[in-house]
């Protein structure tokens, strides 16, 4: 096991941790907007870390570049879908969480 392997494993585990945290956020957060926040921000970071971890193991620049392209497109699409879902919720009159814990 080289240094590169270890570094890659660190990134992968960190990425998996962020993805898990994002999923817990989606399940536990009180309203649509908070959940979107957890889903898009944390998952994008988690995916980015996983991509870095995989790119270290990829072995060729072309593969690493393709992996980063995947991340780039996910970033774009999640930014747009987050906005669209939030706006659709606003238009339907879904209120934002007021700050007190729901019963």
């Amino acid at each position, binding site marked *: 096991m080289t240094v590169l392997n270890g570094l890659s494993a660190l990134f992968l585990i960190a990425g998996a941790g962020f993805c898990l945290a994002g999923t817990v956020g989606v399940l536990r957060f009180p309203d649509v907007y908070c959940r979107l926040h957890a889903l898009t921000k944390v998952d994008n970071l988690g995916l980015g870390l996983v991509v870095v971890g995989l790119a270290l193991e990829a072995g060729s620049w072309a593969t690493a570049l393709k992996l980063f392209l995947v991340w780039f*497109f996910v970033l*774009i699409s999640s930014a*747009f879908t987050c*906005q*669209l879902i939030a706006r659709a919720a606003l238009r339907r009159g879904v209120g934002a969480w007021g700050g007190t814990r729901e019963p």
Partner: protein
Amino acid sequence: MMDALLDGGLALSLPFLAWLVLHTEALSQAVVLFVAMGLMSALAWARLEAPDIALVEAAVGTGLTGALLMHTLSWTEESQAETRTRSTRWLGDALAATVLTAVLGWAVLALPLHSQGLGPMVKARLEESGVDHPVTAVLLNFRGYDTLLEIAVLLVAALGARAVNPRTERPSLETADDPLTGELFRMTTPSVLLLAGYLVWVGAHGPGGAFQAGAILAGGGVVAILTTRVGTPRMSSWQVRWALLTGPLLFVGVAVAPLFSGGQLLEFPPRLAGTLIFIVELALTVSITLVLLMFFPAVRPPKVEHEGTP
């Protein structure tokens, strides 16, 4: 070990997701679960070392079908609760599942124990096909008639889709003042075109080809229909009709041409095979894109007045 975990997870999650799709009361949830199931099955195909099928499953089975279902959802009212009692439904399900399992199990047991399939035969003759990728070689050369007939079936399907939803007026854009969706179209279009072109080109020596490229282009077209003032292609326009026919006509032409020089139907001369396959794939991409776009209705159909409803 890791592979076994991954495969086991896929094998368990697929039937579970399928069951969830069927048993979710809310239609919107069912659609989201269906998309999740499609992604899982694309992963399963990738694990089975069938990247071509994984690509098609992700693009057509999940992407386009998901978009179609979502669009349909926007004019569907949530369904009423089931009138049949739970117990009878459960009984029917169990019976159907048992019969299906028995039939599938019988089919698996009836397979020959030691068989290499057609793989070695394809590999042995791959050089004569004009391409390096076995799937493309089979689809467009060794079993070209399958693909030819598939295209004919797709054309019929497009006709059917238009017959069901013939309205092609341009949509009234609710989001005309919305900079976001138009920007999405502008940002994704170049990469969609690039990706589709790459997929057609790469079909000669790797996973890719006309179906994958057509599905990607149709996906870009769906974004265009949803975010710009472009409507669904009209069947009444001559350009659309000719574009639909490009692939099939060219394919039939290439298939019939050898007959005049004493060859067999669909027998490509080995020297020209690579070029011919590429041209046919390009033409097929045009037709497949349009066929898939034809399925996507631009506007919601007029409200149907049910008899007896107030």
